């Protein structure tokens, strides 16, 4: 397939996954905020911090307030990662790869765009409208994935799209864990308290992991949850499971499972092995924030390697001909 198209479909899925995760973060935080003492900064600041756009937020807003954070993450046109922009970009990308996807997938992404646009154009949405909106985004994205899996052949295009989705998902799972770390830092005396437990449960819910966690581990403990979200091989949103998924796609695309045949496969293999042999207690003792930070940096490097190995053949072939 065309290199440009492969890159576009990879990013189309990353944008969709990002939009869905932002909707999840906000929905759970919103839910949580209803039962907690109204200390808005503590409640909403970490949400912006985990997205990595805290500086941009500060440049656009004087204070941290629920409505401002929601606006910033959901609708802010200046924020390249807002749900609005993610869906807009996903739609522009899917327009550009219309020949790779089906009518069903295109129409669903297109309707998500009109949804976001209509809510963003609404000047004074109520809290209830926000909750409905988050649900619509989550469901709408799931509908795209469902149609994607049900109507598109497992060809190169599907695999590039899948890699984009799971790399983004791994990144967001690491960031949501990191958010909890920020909360803990602010209130070490609360560790193990009921508030602490509510927050851990909320975190699990924000990645739809609560039910599966309960089924596998039962009791809510910080190390158990961290282990589940970083190292579990069966839960589809854990970091390691995402990496295993991406590895399978890369093997199919590169046709090499014994060793690696390109830099993307190599970098991914190293990170995957690192996680496969990791122990959650070591991670916590070393410092979870640093560990997660390191994973995020490596995920970025993998993304660049995928670009250079598959999408940037144009530049390579042009430099060869010079």
């Amino acid at each position, binding site marked *: 397939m*065309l290199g440009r198209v492969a890159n576009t479909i990879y990013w189309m899925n990353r944008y969709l996954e990002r939009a869905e995760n932002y909707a999840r973060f906000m929905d759970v935080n919103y839910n949580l905020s209803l039962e907690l003492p109204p200390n808005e900064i503590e409640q909403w600041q970490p949400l912006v911090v985990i997205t990595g756009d805290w500086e941009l937020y500060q440049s656009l807003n004087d204070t941290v307030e629920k409505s401002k954070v929601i606006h910033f993450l959901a609708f802010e046109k200046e924020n390249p990662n807002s749900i609005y922009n993610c869906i807009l970009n996903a739609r522009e990308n899917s*327009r550009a790869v219309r*020949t790779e996807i089906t009518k069903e997938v295109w*129409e669903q992404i297109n309707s998500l765009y009109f949804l976001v646009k209509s809510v963003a154009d609404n000047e004074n949405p109520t809290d209830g409208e926000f909750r409905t909106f988050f649900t619509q985004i989550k469901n709408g994205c799931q509908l795209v994935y469902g149609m994607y899996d049900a109507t598109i052949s497992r060809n*190169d295009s599907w695999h590039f799209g899948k890699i984009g989705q799971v790399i983004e998902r791994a990144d967001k799972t690491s960031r949501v864990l990191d958010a909890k770390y920020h909360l803990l830092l602010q209130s070490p005396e609360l560790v193990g308290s009921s508030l602490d437990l509510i927050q851990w449960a909320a975190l699990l819910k924000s990645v739809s992991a609560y039910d599966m966690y309960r089924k596998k581990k039962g009791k809510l403990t910080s190390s158990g949850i961290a282990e589940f979200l970083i190292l579990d091989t069966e839960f589809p949103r854990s970091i390691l499971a995402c990496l295993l998924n991406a590895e399978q796609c890369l093997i199919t695309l590169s046709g090499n499972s014994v060793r690696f045949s390109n830099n993307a496969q190599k970098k991914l293999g190293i990170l995957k092995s690192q996680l496969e042999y990791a122990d959650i207690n070591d991670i916590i003792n070393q410092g979870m924030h640093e560990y997660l930070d390191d994973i995020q940096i490596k995920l970025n490097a993998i993304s660049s390697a995928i670009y250079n190995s598959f999408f940037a053949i*144009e530049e390579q072939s042009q430099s060869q001909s010079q």
Partner: protein
Amino acid sequence: MPKLDFSSYDTKGFYDEMFDENNKVRPNYELFSERLANLSQKKLNTLQHATDRAQLSLGMTFNVYSDNQGVERILPLDIIPRIINNEEWTYLEKGLQQRIKALNLFIQDIYNDQKVFKDKIIPKEMIFSSVSYLKELQGFKPPKDIWCHITGSDLIKGGDGQYYVLEDNLRCPSGVSYMLENREILKRTFPELFETLGVKPVYNYTHTLRDTLEYLSDKNKPTVAVLTPGIYNSAYFEHSYLAQQMGAELVEGRDLIVKNDIVYMITTNGLERVDVIYRRVDDDFIDPLVFNKNSMLGTPGLFGAYLKGNVVLVNAPGTGVVDDKAVYAYIPKIIKYYLGEDMILPNVKTYICDEESDRKYVIENIHDLVVKQTDASGGYGMLIGPKSTKKEQEEFIAKIKQNPRNYIAQPMINLSRVPTITDNTIEGRHVDLRPYALYGDDIKIIPGALTRVALKKGSIVVNSSQGGGSKDTWILNS
């Protein structure tokens, strides 16, 4: 439920496609009219709204501004179809086939033997001075000697009920995706109307297009691509739609690379050869080495690969010379010269200002004529005589005298009308007709067309940027 009310429908002064001058329904609309009688205005308006929504959901939109925050518009589809009976269609078909066959021979001749000049059928200077004439193609013959593979001529019907060809579009005629999607939408809107009405299907278009493209290559399974300027082009919906329906690659100039005069696509597995390109990029932009040097839309070396016969370009570069409004005036002579036949489908009477007697007539009768600049399009560079002031007429006379080659004039034609839904009633609106022809092993006219409609009351401008819309066009089996 109040039924549709046509009692105040006005047909005066124009040819109406549905009603004759006594307000009696014409035969081609009889069945449709019977079924429509069961609907109310309210129901019709509901169906119209559903249609607008369907167009948005399908993504049948174009950006008005070139950034992605810009206003996005649909080409509104009016749900009352234009209906043409088989006899009328057969006539159009024959006329278009004749025309395209002759035009193709003409293009081949002006780039090769140039007999048409030697026999003094058309002045040489008229062709050589056309901006669309590419001297780089002199002595070149495209595969199977076909130049104009895809044509979308604009036709109108005058007050006399006669069809006229208004212009030929041989460069990159657009709108065919609207013909195809309009039909899909109308089938959903009026399923009960289609049954037993006997409407000829149009869905074959993309298969025929693919066959036409493959026919041009010597390869058994040629690689076919559609070349688009990209997602910000107003016809991008059509480009992606056609590529997808044909199972062809949709490429931009930057996806292609030319090495040793061979065209390749840049894929994730390396370079892959391309054999046939349906290009929706104008001549000027396909190759910065030969044409517009600042263009980023094309691919360096593409034209060279074409001249070497290593890739087929569709439509062939250089065909745009026929779109010149002065050349149009010669088409009756061109048909007679190459085919020895009289023109079946008439032109609008055209006065060539470069010819002395015509020029004299134009200057004396300018208040009755429409004057057009030969190298302009889209309603620019025009004088509509009956609607102009004395001062404007004098300005145009001066321009004509200064550069006669650049002007033609035609009598004003009153476009026919078709009933069209307005906010609360149904009124006649002016229409034109664009059928699509594919030239492969023979010349096929797809039994359907894009009918463009001027939605503004009294307007004769069907252009999408000026309040135009479209209608589905039904060709009946009988």
